[in-house]
């Protein structure tokens, strides 16, 4: 008489109370040994079933979400606003000085334009070379000087401001 399925299962699950009887039978019965072997192989295969990978990270919701790009510090925002204001003021101041120069430029041809700009530039350089602030009572000279100073100041502020902004981004 062969072992039952229950006996073989309980033997492998190590819950049988008749271990010695079963082992004694297995020693002399090839058929039951083969059935036990089949069952043992199943156990091994179930145990060795590889784990599947997840397609998403379940832990993600428990970690802080990546923060949005940090906002600019308040003082830098203020600097940017200040730059804009200074640039605007510089343009407003510069317009009355630049507009009178515009009609003098005849844009009929590029060559003419080039020579005229060159001529204007030479004139300006000559003018600047003779520039002496305390002894020049002419208003346009003083205004030109103010214009240059304003533009230079605006440029410096612009460069500084952008430098600070870029440095912040690099961090």
């Amino acid at each position, binding site marked *: 008489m062969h072992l039952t399925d229950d006996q073989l299962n309980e033997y492998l699950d190590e*819950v049988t109370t008749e271990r010695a009887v079963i082992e004694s039978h297995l020693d002399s019965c090839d058929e039951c040994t083969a059935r036990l072997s089949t069952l043992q192989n199943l156990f091994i*295969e179930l145990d060795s079933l590889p784990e599947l*990978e997840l397609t998403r990270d379940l832990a993600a919701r428990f970690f802080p979400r990546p923060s949005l790009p940090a906002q600019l510090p308040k003082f830098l925002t203020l600097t940017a606003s200040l730059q804009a204001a200074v640039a605007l003021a510089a343009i407003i101041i510069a317009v009355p000085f630049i507009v009178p120069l515009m009609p003098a430029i005849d844009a009929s041809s590029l060559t003419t334009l080039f020579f005229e700009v060159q001529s204007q530039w030479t004139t300006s350089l000559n003018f600047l070379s003779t520039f002496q602030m305390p002894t020049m009572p002419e208003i346009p000279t003083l205004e030109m000087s103010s214009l240059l100073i304003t533009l230079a100041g605006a440029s410096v502020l612009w460069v500084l401001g952008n430098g600070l902004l870029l440095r912040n981004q690099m961090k």
Partner: protein
Amino acid sequence: MTTPTDRDLILRARRGEREAFGALVTRYQMSVFNVCYRILHERGEAEDLAQEVFIRAYDRIHTFDIEREFGPWIRRVAANLCLNHLESQKPTTELDDERDADHAPSPESAQEVRERSEQIRGALASLPAHYRAVVELRHYQEMSYEEIAEELKIPLSDVKSHLFRARKILAEKLHASD
């Protein structure tokens, strides 16, 4: 720097460190997902329920007995949740076509192992849900017959008959496919 123990992470999570619980999830998410997958046999559903397991565990982290091992406990919670889910969703869902999609490229030598795994998963998936449940609890959760009976609220004799019958079916299917 030493790796924190489960106990450390649980204590930190109890103090409100959400990231500490995140570290626990990272540690156990794969095994929990695989419990869900073996029972449900549908990837999307298994991932959703695995996520649900951790959310529930986090909500109840203050009631967790710190002397217990977290791994077996969370896997048992997962098994319970999936079995309840199956119970509320009869008939059982169809097999997922992509159930064994392996996302990592594997060498040709691993092909046979993958094919055999596919056969085993297929055989498991073909079992009725109540057979699948006892196989999961016995073979993967390593529960005793009595614990399974308690867990599933069925008589001990049913546990044995379901389990032995399930094994017979599996052995026949896998032996036939050899």
